[in-house]
């Protein structure tokens, strides 16, 4: 299975019916493709839509129905649209149950860096800082390493996105949570050993006696 698919499928298992969920660009977007049967959630696009549906069929794109990356989407029955002030009121005001975002680095206390590599990548933070500061639950979806270098660090070398700590990091190798502010290995990826995970992780990981393998 592709790393992205493992990550998306594992995160999809965190969704519960009735949740309002915001998916970031990249791997997070794939989570919507793996929604467990019988689960109905509200997906928000921060450009002003709740009830975001799948990418439209060829020729069915509507010029004013787009996602936060400006790409055509569909709206499900029961969808609603609103302006950007309402959209971020939903995000900051405690109405958003879950945000799933990509990550460049996460440190061993759960601080996330995902918006800039100074002097190299300066795209602007968009909604990332509001999402991490404001959502009730924050899940980071990212590959465990970048070109062989660890992304789960003792301390982020890149500027952080918020002082609020994330709740869960899901990679193709591991699920990591932060009880008491300490990175703790909750699950291993399919066919991945604890030793492989610690070797690919710079952060000090708390390893419980028994670490189950992810169910996908």
């Amino acid at each position, binding site marked *: 299975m592709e790393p992205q698919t493992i990550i998306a499928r594992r995160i999809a298992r965190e969704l519960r019916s009735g949740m309002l969920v915001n998916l970031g660009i990249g791997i997070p977007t794939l989570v919507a493709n793996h929604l467990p049967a019988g689960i109905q959630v509200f997906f928000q696009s921060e450009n002003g839509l709740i009830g975001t549906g799948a990418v439209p069929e060829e020729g069915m794109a509507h010029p*004013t129905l787009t996602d*936060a*990356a*400006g790409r055509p989407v569909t709206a499900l029955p029961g969808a609603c649209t609103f302006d*950007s002030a309402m*959209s971020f009121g939903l995000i900051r005001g405690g109405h958003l149950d879950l945000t799933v975002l990509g990550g460049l680095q996460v440190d061993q206390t759960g601080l996330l860096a995902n918006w800039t590599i100074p002097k190299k990548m*300066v795209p*602007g*933070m968009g909604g990332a800082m*509001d999402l991490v500061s404001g959502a009730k639950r924050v899940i980071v979806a990212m590959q465990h390493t970048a070109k062989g270098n660890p992304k789960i660090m003792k301390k982020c070398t890149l500027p952080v996105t918020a002082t609020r700590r994330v709740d869960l990091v899901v990679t193709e190798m591991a699920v990591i949570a932060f009880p008491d502010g300490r990175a703790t290995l909750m699950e291993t990826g399919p066919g991945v050993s604890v030793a492989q995970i610690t070797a690919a992780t710079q952060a000090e990981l708390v390893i419980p006696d028994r670490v189950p393998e992810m169910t996908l």
Partner: protein
Amino acid sequence: MQTVSLEKSVAMIPDGASVMIGGFMAVGTPERVIDEIVRQNKRDLTVIANDTAMPGRGIGKLVTAKLLRKVIASHIGLNPETQKQMMAGEMEVELVPQGTLIERIRAGGFGLGGILTQTGVGTPVEEGKQRIEVNGKTYLLELALRADFALVHAFLADYLGNLGYALTARNFNPVIAMGADKVIACADNIVPVGVISPDHVVTPAPVVDYLVANPS
């Protein structure tokens, strides 16, 4: 409220003006007004908008034509030309978290001096800003934003200037319509007064100064 020609509406904007522009990745941007600004070669503009779109679309056309002195936006990542001009020091870029940007504009239009938000605390966004503690939580004081002009794209208008929007083309439009000294609205459909149900008016006519048609 006056209905004006496209040419006249843009002729009112002097070089060096500050201009709020609606749109999210060019969806909901008054494209016709943008084209006329390029044609009339308005220079040294300060643009306040969510993003700078992409080359060849929306605000991206103003960037490519090098008409901007400064941009205040949340995201410039899909427009390499913006990043190039920023790195070369040809254009100043102030990056603002999206929820903070829209709230600063809302504050400017709603008669507030600024807003308190937790977004940006402990990040580079905090530099030069006042921290304020309220009930044990730390907030940043973010100041109100106003502009000389707002360029609004609407789906529907009547001849009084009441405006309605379509789907995700709403985004920043109704908020910037409150935040500028002169509001130029460009509408896809202009209907007789009384046709739009009062419940469907999003921007009330008295805040709109000039109406331009956007024939399809």
